[in-house]
């Protein structure tokens, strides 16, 4: 489509963010069509598994370049996220948190590839991840401390008795707000970041002339570079917050 024609018929950014249905699939009324978002998500999971398994295929004492690169990321997740936030007993959760980290990282990065659609920029994927974290936190807390002691530990000790119901209600609200804020943070960051690249590129279509391209393309490239950084940071942030919430449930002894 030429730039002039696009400017005439109006260009809608949101329309370009919507997933494209590749294969129509329904169970009753539930729509489980294969869209390019789903394909990107499968590709992310597949790629993460392949790369990690490939790196761990023949572990050597003196690692090669590829093995040490992957090892340094895994060690970063273990030492800087799991051990720092949860202590030594948090190592049970290391496989879970590592999986979340690599899945989000690869989803975010694959979303930058033209033609794909970021899975983490749809509300459903971060929401599903956050619900899994939410269930993990409370199931682990109840299993470790027993239901009564766990719920009592929500309220700080040393409060007068009449404040307890109020504080307990507040804690319930904050427990529900945590998965919500995890979801919105990942979703909005990825959506906003990837839309900004699209907006810079679509300035050509909006103004209907190629003269703005020398201005808007460098900005798009800069934003692309920043987005690679933000993809890694958002994966780190989601994992470290999950580790923090689970760690708080483990150490609920005040």
């Amino acid at each position: 489509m030429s730039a002039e024609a696009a400017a005439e018929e109006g260009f809608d950014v949101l329309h370009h963010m919507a997933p494209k249905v590749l294969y129509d699939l329904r169970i009753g009324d539930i729509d489980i069509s294969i869209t390019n978002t789903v394909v990107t998500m499968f590709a992310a999971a597949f790629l993460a598994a392949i790369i990690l398994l490939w790196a761990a295929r023949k572990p050597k004492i003196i690692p090669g370049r590829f093995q040490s690169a992957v090892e340094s990321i895994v060690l970063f997740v273990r030492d800087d996220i799991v051990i720092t936030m949860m202590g030594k007993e948090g190592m049970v959760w290391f496989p879970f948190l590592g999986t979340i980290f690599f899945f989000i990282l690869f989803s975010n990065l694959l979303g930058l590839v033209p033609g794909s659609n970021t899975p983490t920029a749809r509300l459903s994927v971060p929401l599903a991840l956050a619900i899994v974290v939410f269930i993990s936190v409370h199931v682990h807390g109840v299993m470790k401390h027993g239901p009564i002691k766990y719920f009592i530990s929500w309220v700080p000790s040393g409060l007068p008795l009449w404040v307890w119901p109020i504080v307990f209600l507040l804690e319930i609200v904050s427990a529900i707000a945590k998965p919500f804020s995890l979801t919105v943070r990942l979703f909005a960051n990825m959506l906003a970041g990837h839309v900004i690249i699209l907006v810079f590129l679509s300035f050509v279509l909006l103004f209907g002339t190629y003269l703005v391209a020398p201005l808007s393309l460098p900005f798009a490239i800069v934003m692309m570079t920043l987005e690679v950084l933000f993809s890694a940071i958002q994966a780190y942030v989601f994992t470290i917050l999950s580790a923090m919430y689970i760690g708080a449930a483990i150490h609920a002894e005040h």
Partner: protein
Amino acid sequence: MEGLGLLGAGVGMGLAALGTGLGIGVLSGKAVEGIARQPEAGGVIRTTMILGIVFIEAIALYTLVISILLWTKG
């Protein structure tokens, strides 16, 4: 009164960006001061700073979601 929703989305997002910018600016400034004064505590300060930034940023992102809702309503 056509387009008031769009106006609200734009003004709200701008205000949210203003507040978040101030917050993150103050936070990272203080963190740099702390690391300059005590470089050996840099790792802990950096982790805490990123956590703080994340919580501040979340507030702007809530506004972004509201703005997108207003934008799609027109």
